[in-house]
């Protein structure tokens, strides 16, 4: 059987990005909501719900970037300069929020400042990721093997919309994680947040979905001709069904359900994205085969990924298992 390694690698990169969105999504989301919680026990509890796992979550972002460079070097070399400003902003946002985990404990006198940094850094990083996605979807100018646009090309109404949408989406994921992982006032507040945010996310998904087919003739063709038109009919139904269930379950119901339902909304959105983009890395200009690394690089990495990815998933699951159950308000001091 002939296996196209380029497709395999596209799948692995998509998997890494999806893992990242899910895992860092909820801890960035907690950052976005952070200053809405009361100073003291509430904030500490929100922080403790992610402190042991955030570093592992963020590693998927490094895999997404490093993996893209390794498997699709040309795409990496064009997309990153094209999205220069949002990517730098994301990195700096992540610096702020990453150090705040430790610093807020070390410096009680300036804890409010680090809390604000944690929140602001999370918002900036998330917004920048959403902008990156939007700017990629709307297209990137290329000349030869290089980016050919300016350094402001990325900002458009559409990319601002995707940026704001992702802030809402991650905030919802964060709220749902807190519903699952905490109890008491934080849990109750998280349910309140999740209720409004779930409506916000549905509106955002609708707006982005309606906008996208008109960005590029290729998207329009994909969605409005057979077989894409099936998805066009089914997707809104799926989103509406899950969305209404989510809205009701934010009020009451099992604590893990809102998180699971939000994840399926993210899953559907990513599926829609994949349908739009396939088989391109840069829409209408660079396909996965144009950008693929040579076969020997693909095989060399596939051996490593095949052995190491299952191990990673195993010990990451174990780490989550160690910290299972509801998080306490206060740590050991």
């Amino acid at each position, binding site marked *: 059987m002939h296996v196209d390694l380029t497709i395999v690698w596209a799948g692995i990169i998509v998997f890494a990005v999806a893992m990242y969105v899910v895992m860092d999504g909820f801890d960035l989301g907690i950052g976005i909501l952070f200053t809405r919680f009361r100073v003291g026990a509430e904030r500490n509890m929100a922080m403790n719900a992610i402190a042991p796992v955030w570093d592992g979550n963020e590693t998927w972002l490094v895999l997404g970037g490093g993996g893209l*460079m390794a498997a699709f070097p040309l795409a990496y070399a064009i997309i990153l300069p094209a999205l220069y400003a949002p990517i*730098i902003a994301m*990195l700096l946002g992540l610096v702020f929020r990453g*150090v705040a985990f430790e610093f807020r404990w070390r410096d009680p006198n300036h804890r409010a400042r680090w809390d604000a940094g944690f929140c602001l850094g999370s918002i900036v990083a998330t917004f920048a990721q959403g902008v990156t996605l939007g700017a990629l979807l709307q297209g990137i100018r290329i000349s030869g*093997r290089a980016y050919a646009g*300016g350094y402001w090309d990325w900002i458009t109404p559409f990319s601002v919309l995707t940026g704001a949408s992702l802030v809402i989406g991650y905030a919802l994921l964060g709220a749902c994680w807190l519903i699952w992982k905490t109890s008491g006032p934080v849990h109750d507040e998280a349910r309140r947040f999740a209720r409004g945010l779930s409506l916000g996310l549905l509106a955002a998904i609708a707006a982005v979905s309606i906008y996208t087919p008109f960005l590029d003739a290729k998207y329009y063709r994909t969605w409005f001709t057979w077989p894409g038109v099936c998805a066009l009919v089914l997707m809104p139904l799926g989103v509406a069904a899950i969305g209404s269930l989510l809205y009701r379950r934010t009020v009451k119901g099992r604590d893990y359900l809102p998180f699971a339902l939000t994840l399926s909304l993210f899953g559907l959105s990513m599926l829609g994205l994949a349908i739009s983009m396939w088989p391109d890395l840069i829409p209408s200009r660079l396909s996965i085969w144009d950008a693929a690394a*040579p076969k020997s*690089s693909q095989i060399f990495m596939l051996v490593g990924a095949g052995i190491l990815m299952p191990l990673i998933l195993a010990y990451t699951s174990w780490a989550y298992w160690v910290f299972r159950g509801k998080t306490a308000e206060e740590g050991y001091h």
Partner: protein
Amino acid sequence: MTGTFTALDLARAQFAFTISFHFIFPAFTIGLASYLAVLEALWLKTGKPVFNNLYRYWIKIFAIVFAMGVVSGIVMSYQFGTNWAVFSDKAGPIVGPLMAYEVLSAFFLEAGFLGVMLFGINKVGPKLHFLATCMVALGTLLSATWILAANSWMQTPAGWMMNDVGQFVPKGSWLWIILNPSFPYRFVHTVIAAYLTTSLAVGGVGAWHLLRDASNPGARTMFSMAMWMAAIVAPIQILAGDTQGLNTLEYQPAKVMAMEGHFSSYAAGAPLVLLGIPDEKNRRIDYSLEIPKLSSLILEHDLNAPLAGLDTVPQSDWPPVSIVFWSFRVMVGLGLAILALGLFSLLARMRGKLFEWPLLHRLTVMMGPAGFVAVIAGWVTTEVGRQPFTVYHLLRTADSASPIASPAVTGSLIAFIVVYFATFASGAVYILKLMAKPPSTHETLPDAAPIRTAGITPASGMGAGGD
């Protein structure tokens, strides 16, 4: 500002700034993770509370350093693309997989077990917790392996060919790429440097507290361990540096010429320039203080061996001589000072005055940051010495950059400087505050340790050890 600096200069400045900041953290975490593994092993083996207390003392510092290393490292993994797009396109098929292996084998391992290491002491029991510490330590070493393989390939490229779109692609086995000529030397020299850096930092903290209270058991133990490390490893490091220098002479002679300050060739025995001021324009060293023929002895093991100088290399292929000349001297000078400190500690130990010789302690405090300075100086020597190429002799730095206009790079460079100083300077202050507290006999666990409210009572685990 943008009129005087080109986009290329700014991109280089940004890379130099971010990598120098970043490198400080792994240089410390590589050593500290191994030190913590040793401390925990000793505690598990002997049951002596001092080891458990030291573990708890240093893990709080480790947590801060590690967090700063992670966030500054994420920046690096994206900066290749944002600022060095042509390099990423051309060298991506070779350098990319090495970095992907670093992520898969090292970063996930560190991150996956770090949570348990920091917060899981009372959840998993001492043996599993020790395993977590060892996995984090292993992760730091694997990370060094892959990133140094990638860096060494840029210095001494091997096992490559060019495809029809101008990319470097593997030719034959990946082992040629990974085990490229300078990798084994660079790996040994860098990892030992990390251990030495950590031993000086630990020793400096121990000495600081010995000066205040020579009876503090934690301070005594950490000082003694650190001084053993310095005394044993410093000479090994000098040997490792020497062999790496010989390797560089073989594969990157222009770098060694710049390090030595040899503008001209010597037919019979080249002098060792101890100090002086390189004058690149007139191709000479001013106020040179030199020892005749010693350079030939060191590099060729023969007093009268001829040694080629920069006059044999086109000036367009020269690295910036002054920078390499000085950074090399800073590194070597500090290396010799560390060796002297190690010998002093042996003398003090022989006389039974290791904990009661304030001069030794004061010197050790002064040398506390020396490892970091030496590591950065060494890194500058090897990286600036690689110029003007990114892939040595094959791809010029000037041909490697992204098509980003200078205002954008100016903006990002300023943003990096502001954010790095704001965050990492705060981090340094917090680390110094933790270091300023003497190790107590009842060290607390790291803060922010989440505990379960429901479920079984945490096992007595490490918790009992401090009492």
